């Protein structure tokens, strides 16, 4: 019968003492469970460590470094014992069996268990990260509220405080703000300011000038914006940090940005313009900060669950390979609704694709109505316009009276990606003040009307009208 080499137990005892120290300092039941189960597998007695602190101090990197050291201890031990064995001139059968047993015990038992322990620590890390992700948004919202209050009490202004009319443009999935930038330029008035918040963190500032009959964005520095006439409108073309981030993350980040700019205050009114999923993002922001939003105008927005988005969420590989869509993009946000989540390699997260698959906008609106009727009432008071872009089909027929082939155009019931019903937010009922439909000519299946809605001339004219309306 195999009798464990006492040197193994000696080393394990040293490691056990360190493990007990880790458990006590971490104060995590999950960590304790991982160590105790491993030690019971190691046949080295039981771990005896108490968890006294209420604060969990979990540092997975530090624990992994310690386990790596333990692995090294055993590797060094084995090396030394093998060297000792080789020095024996005429080893007996028992000597040979001892070294084989030692090697087997260390390599196939102890080291295997240690590596498994590292894996368990990795899983715990992912679990903690998942929980942290879920609570990050409420914490950031609370922080935003505190900052807003602090700035208000202490009269702290941002660089843009004083602009009373602000347009915010929010793009949709897989996109940047560049298309909206062009439409904002076209719909703006001479002297208006455009702030382009780019995904890479850079911010560019432009003043609109009429140049030979057309609006031109002229790049200027922040210093010039600070001294600009603040009776003009400020247009913020906002690019999300992650192109496929969930609407809640956009709302939290946008609020943080607007507070920093000094634009979330009693005097500034925000008109939101959005395309595609950007409409859901804008709605979320309006639900979170209803005192500050005056109007929302969306085009191409999937207010209902969306088939294409849902399919991409279910088959991300196909979406990537055939349509260049990143349905697994990790955007550091986790929704509390377990249906509105993905699990990629143990990492739970939520993004536009999980959202479009699992939730219609009406669900959150209904929650808001019950949980915060005051905010819902403010939402009712906002001017909300849901525009549906729709593709068109051209039919040809022979006009017998004229003796020639003629064409007539029939609008489709969708824009190639989202149905008119969904874009009109029919499910939101009277919350929507205006439902408009624009014919937008698409090009084939790959470039449908949906991709051309932001630059549609009717939509740009609508932006201009809303910008003008609130200046009067």
């Amino acid at each position: 019968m195999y009798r464990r080499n006492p040197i193994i137990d000696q080393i394990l005892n040293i490691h056990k003492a360190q493990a007990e120290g880790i458990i006590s300092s971490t104060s995590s039941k999950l960590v304790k469970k991982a160590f105790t189960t491993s030690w019971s597998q190691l046949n080295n007695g039981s771990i005896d460590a108490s968890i006294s602190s209420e604060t969990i101090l979990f540092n997975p990197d530090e624990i992994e470094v310690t386990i790596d050291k333990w692995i090294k201890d055993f590797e060094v031990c084995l090396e030394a014992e093998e060297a000792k064995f080789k020095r024996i001139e005429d080893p007996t059968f028992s000597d040979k069996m001892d070294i084989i047993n030692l090697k087997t015990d260390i390599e196939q038992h102890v080291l295997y268990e240690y590596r498994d322990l590292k894996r368990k620590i990795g899983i715990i890390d992912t679990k903690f990260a998942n929980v942290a992700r879920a609570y990050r948004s409420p914490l950031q919202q609370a922080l935003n509220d505190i900052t807003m209050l602090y700035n208000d009490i202490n009269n702290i202004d941002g660089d843009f405080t004083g602009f009373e009319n602000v347009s915010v443009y929010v793009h949709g999935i897989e996109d940047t703000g560049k298309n909206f930038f062009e439409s904002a330029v076209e719909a703006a008035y001479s002297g208006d300011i455009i702030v382009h918040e780019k995904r890479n963190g850079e911010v560019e500032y432009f003043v609109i000038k009429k140049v030979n009959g057309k609006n031109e964005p002229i790049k200027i520095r922040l210093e010039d914006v600070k001294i600009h006439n603040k009776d003009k409108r400020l247009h913020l073309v906002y690019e999300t940090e992650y192109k496929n981030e969930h609407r809640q993350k956009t709302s939290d980040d946008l609020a943080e940005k607007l507070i920093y700019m000094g634009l979330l205050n009693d005097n500034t009114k925000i008109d939101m313009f959005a395309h595609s999923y950007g409409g859901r993002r804008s709605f979320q922001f309006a639900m979170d900060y209803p005192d500050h939003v005056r109007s929302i105008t969306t085009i191409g927005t999937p207010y209902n669950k969306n088939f294409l988005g849902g399919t991409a969420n279910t088959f991300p590989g196909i979406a990537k390979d055939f349509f260049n869509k990143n349905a697994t993009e990790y955007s550091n946000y986790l929704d509390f609704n377990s249906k509105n989540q993905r699990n990629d390699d143990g990492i739970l997260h939520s993004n536009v694709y999980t959202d479009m698959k699992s939730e219609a906008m009406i669900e959150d609106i209904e929650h808001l109505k019950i949980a915060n009727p005051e905010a819902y009432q403010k939402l009712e008071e906002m001017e909300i316009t849901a525009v549906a872009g729709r593709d068109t089909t051209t039919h040809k027929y022979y006009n017998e009276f004229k003796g020639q082939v003629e064409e007539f155009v029939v609008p489709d019931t969708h824009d190639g990606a989202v149905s008119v019903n969904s874009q009109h937010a029919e499910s939101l009922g009277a919350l929507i003040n205006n439902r408009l439909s624009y014919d937008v000519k698409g090009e084939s299946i790959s470039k449908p009307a949906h991709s051309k809605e932001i630059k549609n001339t009717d939509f740009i004219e609508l932006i201009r009208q809303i910008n003008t309306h609130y200046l009067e």
Partner: protein
Amino acid sequence: MKKGKKVILVLIFILLLFACENHFEIGEKKVTYQNEFPKESSPALSEFLRSYILGYESILLFKGEAFIYSDRNMNTNSNKLTYFQHTSSQLNEYYDPIFSTDHPEKILHELFDEKKGRLHHEIEDEENKFLPDVTLDKGNVLKIKTDQKNVSFSIPENLDKNLSDELILNIESTNEFGFILQLENDISGEIYYFFALNDLSEMDIFQDIELTSVIEQGQLKPYYPLLKTINESLSVIDYKIIDTKTHEVFKVESEHSFSKDYKYIYLNGRDNPLEEGVQRVQRIEDYVEGNDQYYAEFKLNYEEISDELDFNSVGIGSANTVYFNEDLIVIHLEFDAAITGTAGSTNVIIDLQKNKDNPIFYLVDLGIIA
């Protein structure tokens, strides 16, 4: 059967021959794409960098060994003209880091933001000869001091212009004969041009929308020497080309792009998206004559550019000119992904210096979208 095979072989041979010929033809005119920022400076590139970095805030008045500018006033709180200068070597030294970085877009962004401390140098009195000392006080009272005379007067009272709002004061141009000021109503956006000879013996003010009729009636004649000159008979102001001999005014259509030096027109250069295919640049003289002489003709091929950059694109979404001057055009391209979203973007620096019909295309995203 044998005959059939022969026919098929002949057909394949003919097809291959045509295919080779096409390839050869394309090969002959093959565009040179370089997926990087130019490695070294050149006159046209230097002018682009100067123009981008100094930007709208700096109004270029004189260009030589020293570049002399006026600081643009952006609101009515600044009521005085101020000037600054830099030399070409100071400029070269300032933008030099852009040639040794892997992130030219970042460097360019910094160069734009940090220019004031590095490129704004005071102008000595002896260099100040043609830079009028101008202040616009409340009630639109202009105080002007040139090397020949000082005056102070109210524009509404003395020049019969009903200007009640405060105006933003800037200078349009200046030379040994006099200067042109630009006065902008910050509220209405109205723009006025104030013309004055250096001895202040003649002064006039016209709104931009009046200019065409004023020119056609010959009223601007005394001030023709103050205008930007294209050649001995053509000058330009407010995007209007003037034949100073006949007082004829030629309007450049809004879809065409004026070069920064006002000497060239990029036909349809303000369209968005710029149409693929042959691009044409004309000298102003040829544009005015309406002839088909082109200073440069080259092809734009979006599919090729998309392929060069490995974009998984279904076509062009946005294509616009962001800079146009003699021998260098910079455009911004944004490619569409399938169904929705972007497949990627880039700037294209089209360098016409060596070959105007087959320029070098530098594909590099400088982050310039307008």
